């Protein structure tokens, strides 16, 4: 009787389970992809999904140049005349000065009272740098657009 009672009170050996799980964790940790894909949403000014409006609003442009300069322009919506312009000079080694650009664009947007900024890269500008420009503008909670790259010197 006693031996039967002992047999019923058995314990599952969990050590092998633990070993298998440890190996699983090690394998998954080494093969896991930690970088996640995100996106930057842009509203293109062209296309048939844009809402129609009677008057064109003023627009602010950020022109990204190959020499590291950033040209910030505020243009009138009526006749595209230049209302204000500023240039952000590159930092050391022709690197874009994004911190200065951020403060300058914030000033220009506050002055122009527009919330949409269009990025215009020059042909030869890196795609990564264009994304950096869009990222800076997203940080200011602005609506952003991307114009196709233009050949030659941007003015």
């Amino acid at each position: 009787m006693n031996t039967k009672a002992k047999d019923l009170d058995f314990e599952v050996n969990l050590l092998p389970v633990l070993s298998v799980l440890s190996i699983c964790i090690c394998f998954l940790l080494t093969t896991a992809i930690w970088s996640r894909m995100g996106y930057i949403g842009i509203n293109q000014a062209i296309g048939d999904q844009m809402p129609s409006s009677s008057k064109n609003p003023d627009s602010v442009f950020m022109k990204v140049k190959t020499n590291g300069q950033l040209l910030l322009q505020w243009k009138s919506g009526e006749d595209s005349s230049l209302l204000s312009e500023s240039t952000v000079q590159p930092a050391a080694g022709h690197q874009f000065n994004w911190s200065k650009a951020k403060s300058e664009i914030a000033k220009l947007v506050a002055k122009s009272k527009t919330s949409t900024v269009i990025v215009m890269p020059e042909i030869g500008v890196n795609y990564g740098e264009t994304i950096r420009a869009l990222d800076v503008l997203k940080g200011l909670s602005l609506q952003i657009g991307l114009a196709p790259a233009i050949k030659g010197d941007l003015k």
Partner: protein
Amino acid sequence: MSFQSPFNKSNRSPMLLGQSHLRPQRSNIKKKAATLMITSLVDAFSILVIYLLFGPAITGEAVNPELKLQLPVAYQSSLADQETSLVIKNNRYYLQNEEVAPQKLVAKLKQVSRKFSDKKALVIIADQKNDIEKINPVLIAASEAGLSQLRLAVEHQGE
């Protein structure tokens, strides 16, 4: 005078055995076998395995390593959902894993845009070292196809 070896069994017990007030040791107390609670450890490990298996699916789409693209890094990005993607790789365009000639981009995008629901948009996936000129045909084709909502894929670095 007899010499008593220190290795003799009778001389091994410490002199203060059984005198301590903190842990009185008595020879008649049975030694308890130290048991490790493995069940809770197994539970924790199981949760870790489940998280590592399904984590990327829950927290956002992982960057597909097969693309072999170095996506640009952005801090103000949103996490991507499963959407229609256009990959630009080695100056070639792949719409939903199917190669498309630059001349046929507009027609193909028009086909795809008909299937879009309100929230869906076209995701452009390109290497960060690409010249922006390579993106031009897509931007122009998207506008001709009537797509105003575009999404540029980045490596998410935000919270």
